[in-house]
């Protein structure tokens, strides 16, 4: 393919951009959450400090090889989702490594991190980790239902699975976005986005009160640092993907950042309003509401 070594540097550069966006956005979102609760809230750069702090802790323990590799898998998964998605439309260098595969690759790479993390947490030997992972996987597989259907719908709509081509088809103004040309699929996608972001009401995986923070219970220090890095990158990568397929992508970084910010607000707004679902409730919710909506959306796309 048209791979040039310089692309690695560009990819790293774009990675550092998205990392910073992710960290700042995380801070801002928490600030907003605090303000909704009439608090002053954290400093918006607090995530930076936390991440540095965790990397600079002196001691750490490990339960075994998989425990050690868990965060590595996790961050690789997050980075992979980002690196396999083209970021800026029209830019060869900010297309990342999207030449390696299309949207299906991105979709399945999401699981790379989850699976690796689950394995690491599993070797930690903590029962809460296992319970958290069990819940997480159960919920993710249910929440993927609308995502899969939305992706199928988009691919039907554009007759392509290539993100670049999908973005290309949406160029030329807001009226060409999937949002406008196929609103039903977009609604489906936005619902799927709620599930993908793992925020309330679908955040039972971490459930701090019940099973102290679930899978990462045993993770600390630099391991936690790596996972926090992923926590900033991974949602951003997913947001970039959604921006690309539903909201016309972006031709420059400014537009991309703006769109990321706005789209990111959607689960945040839902999250501060709705309380958490229990895991069986959330699975049922996905099967009961998201699945029929998906069927309707696909049928509408197919026949109208």
């Amino acid at each position, binding site marked *: 393919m048209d791979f040039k070594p310089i692309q690695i540097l560009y990819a790293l550069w774009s990675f550092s951009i998205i990392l910073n966006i992710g960290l700042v956005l995380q801070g801002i979102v928490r600030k907003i959450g*605090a303000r909704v*609760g*009439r*608090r*002053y*809230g*954290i*400093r918006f750069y*607090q995530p930076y*400090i*936390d991440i*540095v*702090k965790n990397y*600079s*802790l*002196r*001691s*750490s*323990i490990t339960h075994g090889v998989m425990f050690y590799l868990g965060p590595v898998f996790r961050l690789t998964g997050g980075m992979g989702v980002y690196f396999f998605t083209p970021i800026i439309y029209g830019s060869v260098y900010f297309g990342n490594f999207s030449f390696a595969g299309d949207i299906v690759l991105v979709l399945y790479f999401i699981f790379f991190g989850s699976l690796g993390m689950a394995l690491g947490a599993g070797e930690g030997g903590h029962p809460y980790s296992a319970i958290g992972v069990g819940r997480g996987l159960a919920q993710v597989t249910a929440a993927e239902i609308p995502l899969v259907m939305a992706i199928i719908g988009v691919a039907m709509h554009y007759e392509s699975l290539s993100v670049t081509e999908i973005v290309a088809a949406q160029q030329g103004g807001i009226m060409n976005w999937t949002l406008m040309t196929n609103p039903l699929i977009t609604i489906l996608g936005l619902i799927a986005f709620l599930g993908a972001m793992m925020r309330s009401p679908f955040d039972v995986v971490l459930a*701090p*009160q019940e099973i*102290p*923070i679930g899978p*990462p*219970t*045993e*993770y*600390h*220090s630099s391991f*936690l640092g790596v996972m926090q890095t992923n926590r900033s990158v991974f949602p951003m990568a997913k947001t970039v993907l959604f921006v690309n397929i539903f909201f016309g992508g972006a031709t420059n970084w400014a537009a991309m950042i703006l769109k990321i910010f706005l789209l990111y607000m959607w689960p945040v707004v839902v999250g501060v309003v709705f309380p958490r679902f229990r895991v069986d409730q959330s699975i049922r919710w996905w099967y009961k509401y998201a699945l029929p909506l998906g069927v309707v959306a696909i049928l509408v796309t197919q026949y109208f």
Partner: protein
Amino acid sequence: MKEEFEKRIVTGPDGKQFEVDPMKDYFCEDRPQVHQPNSNTVIEKFMNWARSESLWILGFGTGCGAIEMRPLMTPRFDAYRYGIQWRPTPRQANVFVISGYLSVKTLKRVVRSYEQMQGPKYVVGLGSCTINGGMYWDSYNTINRLDYYLPVDIYIAGCMPRPESLLAGFEQLKKMIKAGECEGQNKYAENFDWYKANQKKIIKDWDMPDYNW
């Protein structure tokens, strides 16, 4: 020692018998190590700044003082703006606030949780009970001096100290961390035997390894 931690003979799937010693097989027996600060003072200063501005408190209320911790999260006091947050697991926490009187039974759990935290870690003694026993100074099962059992970085006096004084205490702790004075973890490792002797003197049914990794 509880029955489940006594040595026992177990039959493996292949019919071979072997001994399981839970205290040895289930737990790591290593002693804690001294972790020297980074030799580069600039880096160390930067790290200390980060550590001080991101204090993650272990959510473990050991005594009545825990009631004074809760208001810190409320809009009125909002400790989050100082970089103070609560974590539900010792692995991810850096600050252990001993909130008030500490009975012998709780001390055992406190020691275990403290040792499971990853360093550098800080201990804040809250209320006069942690300083000298306070109103429980002559009780049959309440400790008098916390610093005999854990390396305390800072005491916040009062019975009870108000949330304002807690915030003041945390600010003081931050200053000390930035100045590189809070090396409690290393102090604990260096004087490990002394601490352990003190702990074991009052915790009569010591059924855990010397250091809970």
